[in-house]
């Protein structure tokens, strides 16, 4: 392990030297080693096991008021020279109308529980067995479970940021993402269930629990009724609550807000949600799924409140968007490539410039127990899964999701019956403003590579039947 970081550091120093020798004013190298092992489960069997080990460097350069970026996976000296030239060429027409400099060094905080040697060094044979344990548990839960599909991703990464202002920040971590979808059958009736979670260490991976939860949801939907179109009180369980949280994360990124989702653009200092909603970003949270001592440009992490009791207090910043808006970086640089045709694996990615984004966001837990929220609901729906969730009008906030499975009617505080597939069609701002209960416990939930700590929330939304 040490030798890999040493070789990354060697390549990084070489890049900075080449850049300085070529007369560039500033340079920043972001070096990555990212390993992903994926076990895919299909039709109650292991379908494929696949791995990627990606090592490379992303380089930003500043010349005068010009900024450039390029990346490569080839760390030979010849390639690094080409990298510097390419980064300089991309800077030529990109004149910044403001002064910009890469971050300065700072004191590095410590974060516990983000690296697990056992997970990083887990033999692939063991990973296959753990993945399959999810299927075993689901099949054992109930004979009506006939099919399972899922995935186990195990990720370990090391990163290093070096810049000509003296930043030298190492970071390493591990995490897993595990999910299972189960199908249950009874006569002609078919029902689905799923469970998905993530964690930073091997001891958090509980395949039996995942398999049983997926199976339980599938079996529970075998007897279901058609939903009547209406506006309902909606209890969003962990996964759909994370779906909402995921969209809010986009909205508080000044870059994403400018480019794609401007819903919060003119709402700083204004009410965007009910007083029950406080959104915190805490990358220092021990064991946090998005925690790390530094962000992806080497700025030290800090805890901050983004939405306080419903009022939008701030957007999150990296150094670049901070410079645009004349604000300091909030330590929220993440690197992701959203270029099509470029790899975007879980873990760390050197193919993109930093973007400002919440790193370990969560809704502040409320006072309610999950069960109490259900007990307190006279007439509503319990939503355990979102599917195909979209902000269909990002200016106005039109929001839709298919409630594909795990949908139940709640009457007088009790879950009475499972409901057939339905569609939520409402407005995200209205849904946020209608939140009247938040549960007191955070659970890691999500789907398809997007996981966060989240409580259960209760709101209102319009739901139609589609089956």
């Amino acid at each position, binding site marked *: 392990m040490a030798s890999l970081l040493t070789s990354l550091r060697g390549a990084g120093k070489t890049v900075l030297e080449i850049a300085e020798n070529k007369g560039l004013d500033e340079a920043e190298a972001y070096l990555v080693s990212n390993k*992903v092992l*994926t*076990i895919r489960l299909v*039709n*109650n*069997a*292991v379908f*494929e*096991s*696949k*791995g*990627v*080990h*990606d*090592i490379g460097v992303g380089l930003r350069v500043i010349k005068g008021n010009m900024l450039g*970026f*390029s*990346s*490569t*996976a*080839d760390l030979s000296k010849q*390639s690094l020279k080409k990298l510097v030239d390419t980064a300089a060429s*991309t800077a*030529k*027409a*990109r004149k910044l*109308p403001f002064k910009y400099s890469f971050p300065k060094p700072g004191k590095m905080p410590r974060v516990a529980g983000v690296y697990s040697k056992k997970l990083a060094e887990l033999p692939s*044979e063991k990973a*296959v067995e753990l993945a399959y344990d999810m*299927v075993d548990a689901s099949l054992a839960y109930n004979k009506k479970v006939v099919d399972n*599909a899922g995935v186990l*991703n195990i990720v370990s990464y090391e990163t290093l940021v070096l810049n000509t202002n003296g930043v030298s920040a190492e970071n390493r971590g591990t995490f897993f993402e595990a999910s*299972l*979808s189960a*199908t249950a059958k009874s006569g002609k009736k078919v029902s*689905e269930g799923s469970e998905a979670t993530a964690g930073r260490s091997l001891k958090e991976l509980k395949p039996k629990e995942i398999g049983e939860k997926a199976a339980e949801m599938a079996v529970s939907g075998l007897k279901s009724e058609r939903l009547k179109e209406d506006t309902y009180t909606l209890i969003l369980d962990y996964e759909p609550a994370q779906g909402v949280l995921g969209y809010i994360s986009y909205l508080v990124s000044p*870059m994403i807000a*400018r480019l794609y989702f401007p819903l919060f653009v003119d709402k700083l200092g204004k009410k965007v949600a009910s007083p029950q909603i406080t959104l915190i970003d805490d990358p220092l949270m021990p064991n946090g799924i998005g925690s790390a001592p530094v962000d992806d440009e080497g700025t030290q992490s800090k805890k901050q409140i983004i939405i306080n009791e419903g009022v939008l207090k701030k957007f999150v910043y990296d150094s670049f968007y901070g410079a645009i808006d004349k604000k300091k970086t909030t330590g929220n640089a993440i690197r992701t490539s959203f*270029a*099509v*045709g*470029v*790899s*975007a694996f879980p873990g760390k990615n050197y*193919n*993109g410039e930093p973007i400002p984004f919440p790193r370990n966001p969560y809704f502040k837990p409320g006072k309610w127990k999950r069960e109490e929220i259900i007990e307190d609901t006279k007439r509503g729906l319990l939503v355990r899964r979102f*599917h*195909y969730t*979209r902000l*269909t009008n990002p*200016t*106005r906030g*039109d929001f839709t999701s*298919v409630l*594909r499975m795990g949908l139940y009617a709640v009457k007088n505080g009790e879950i009475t019956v499972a409901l057939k*597939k339905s*569609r939520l069609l409402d407005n995200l701002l209205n849904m946020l403003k209608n939140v009247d209960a938040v549960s007191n416990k955070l659970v890691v939930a999500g789907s*398809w590579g997007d996981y966060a700590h989240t409580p259960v929330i209760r709101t209102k939304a319009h739901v139609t039947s*589609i*089956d």
Partner: protein
Amino acid sequence: MEEDSALFAVEYASKLGAGYVDARVEDHYNELIIVANGKVQRGIINRKRGIGIRTLVNGAWGFQSTTDLTKKGIRQATETAFKVAKASSKHVPKPVKLAPAKAYKTSYKTKVKVDLEDVAFEDKLKQIIAWEKMLHTSKKIVRGLAEYTGIKIHKLFVNNEGAKIRFSNSLTWVSLKADSKKGDMTQFYERTVGHSGGHEIFQKNDMEKLSTEVGHKAETLLKAKAAKTEKDATVILDNDYAALLAHEIVGHPSEADRVLGREAAWAGTTWWAGKIGEKIGSDYFTVYDDPTIPSTLGYYRYDDEGVKAERKVLIKKGVLKGHMHSRETATIFGVKPNAGMRAITFEYIPLIRMSNTFFGEGDWKKEELIRETKHGYLISCMRHPSIDDKRYNWTISAQEAYEIKNGELTTHLRDIALTSTAPKFFKSINAITKRVEIVPLPGCGKGDPMQSLYVGNGGPYIRGVATVLGVK
């Protein structure tokens, strides 16, 4: 060098005991420029090369990729690809069997007139800045967004059956979007231009004119009337809207892995599983998937399993004829493999993907279609899809529409979507035009980890029946 690397991996995996092995050595060049409201948000060039090694051991798949192209790096990756496949084989009750495929030895290139790297990045940046500026046709345009992508890929595919295929591909596209605002009303309009080829596409098309049109459209939509819900209305879909429909409710459910339930976890399944040979639509309903069409985003001659590409007939005159296959799914369905496998880079295992999926032609003219419609709607340009996991119920919004009264286009409509079920709509198709247009759809997502891929979709103008929704 690359050939040595690939052959070494293939030979070494065979020696370890893999029944089948293939390797892809790839060199990628990728540029991205994003300009919003006059400011360059992104201007980057990525380069990446490496190898992906896929093994079949005791009927189970293993895969490993690496960017370390030293002999040691490839050796390690090959060993891992073998080891994970072997470990998986304990939990594979039905060993994978590959349908036979001819081992081609060939080399081909996408036709390029102006190589992407022959145009200075600086000049491309200036162009995108200029096009974004043209989106701002008046003060009502509050946001302009121009996104440019250019990709070059050199790929070598080899397998232990003797195949050796080289492919040099080049793709580029630009998306232009304008957001307009008046009072509390906000609207937007967007278009994408792209192809497989070089920078010449931006010389052939008058991009500044197109940008201005996009700006004007966004402004015009502010004056359009909000659509009202109407059950079972006659609708005429233009090429662009038909493209998204082809993509979402024909293309995705035609992927054989999806039909087999293998994408159930995230993406979903398919309502027409087991219905091959059944009539599921009207005689006017025909859909192809064809990677062999030059200049499209879905262009290729051989897929990432080395299978020669051909036009796939998915639906013919309303009858479900077949799916998109890998060599593995072809065995399961007892058909010939039809070159459906693609991976976005060497780092990913190939998946069954659309290439260019489009509705087949008819014999009507667009004008006739409108003229012979007493009351209906012309639905223009795709916006957002909301589809259930079986691709049965669908709702897709459009950028704009026109009400048709007595054969003439009348009221301009905004905030409109169509909804129906797949079979209901397929059966309702009653007229289609002759001219098929395939449009670029960059960014189709599938797989875990997700692979975002560029495809082409399209069709002629299509007339059918669907419920019109006014989207609040």
